[in-house]
């Protein structure tokens, strides 16, 4: 019998590819956001609205992750975001290899801002580094205010929270204040946006934040 010390992160291979992706994006000064949430929290709708606000001034790109279909990819292409659809074929999350492959399809020198829409799932995607700069978790009001407490890893591993569908306040679907408080309890450092994609609430603040990310990244490259 022989015991061999290994001491390695199980996801080391993924992390190494993610680090490669991050350097590549840095080199081209392209900030990248990884959008994660339960199915249906409003990721694609938010990106559609974001396109309306930003595509006049910035060139956006997206990688769309879904278990099956290219429906979301088609929605984003339809609003003018060049999008590569990735199907995981049952997989519950995107991994760094999928992003590395998808990136072949973009000219990063002509891209200002890259979005990754992860597979709708509040658990698994948080474990896989995709080389993004910002992890964004969406929590829609109808999901209920207890979700940050029940799925803490996702909130711990994100730096931005978009409280979505805030127009649905009044539908007796959990309160905005409690959703925000529970998320901040899990991760007090979350930067929070309250957004309704249908009514337009909070979209300006979100768009301003994205513009600032682009400016910051380009400045970082010049310095």
């Amino acid at each position, binding site marked *: 019998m*022989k*015991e061999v010390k290994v*001491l*390695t992160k*199980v996801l080391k*291979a*993924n992390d190494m590819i993610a680090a490669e992706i991050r350097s590549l994006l840095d080199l081209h000064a392209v900030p990248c956001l990884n959008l994660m949430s339960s199915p249906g929290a409003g990721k694609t709708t938010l990106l559609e609205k974001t396109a309306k606000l930003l595509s006049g001034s910035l060139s956006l790109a997206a990688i769309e992750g879904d278990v099956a279909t290219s429906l979301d990819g088609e929605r984003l292409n339809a609003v003018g975001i060049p999008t590569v659809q990735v199907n995981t074929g049952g997989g519950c999350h995107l991994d760094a290899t999928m992003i590395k492959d998808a990136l072949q399809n973009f000219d990063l020198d002509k891209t200002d801002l890259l979005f990754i829409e992860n597979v709708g799932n509040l658990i698994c995607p948080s474990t896989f580094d995709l080389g993004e700069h910002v992890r964004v978790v969406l929590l829609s009001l109808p999901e209920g205010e207890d979700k940050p407490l029940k799925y*803490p890893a996702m909130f711990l591993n994100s730096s931005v929270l978009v409280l979505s569908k805030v127009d649905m306040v009044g539908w007796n679907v959990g309160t905005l204040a409690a959703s925000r408080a529970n998320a*901040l309890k899990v991760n*007090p450092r979350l930067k929070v946006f309250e957004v309704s994609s249908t009514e337009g609430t909070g979209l300006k603040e979100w768009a301003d934040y994205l513009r600032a990310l682009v400016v910051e990244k380009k400045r970082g490259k010049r310095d």
Partner: protein
Amino acid sequence: MHELSVAQRIVEIVEEQAAKSGLARVTAIKVRIGKLSTIVPEALNFCFGFATEDTLAAGAELVIEEVAAEARCNSCGKTFPVTEAYFLLCPSCSSPDTTLLKGQELDLMSIEGETPDGEKPDDGRTGDVTPKPGDNVQ
């Protein structure tokens, strides 16, 4: 259910390491899993059985060491367990400026197995090579 892909990664690393160390068969695999890692030990164990089928780790035991979550307050300096009661908010001074120290581990610690002719370890190491809690994971 990303436990299956995690189990497959474990098997890949194990095969690599077994080849390097001249193991013909792997009988036990030790992993360390943080409470906040999103990996459910039972699910991982279940998937591990499938992932090891027809590999040199077939039938190996997966030994899971769970690691409780712990954070340090950057304001008052105290270390505290991360629990559902307050998560990352310091229970002593209520500061949100805290650093998670433990709880997100997903590490492969060691493997145990048999060399082709049942010979003793040939790496000159003697005694216990079980990783210690303080060991650094690359």
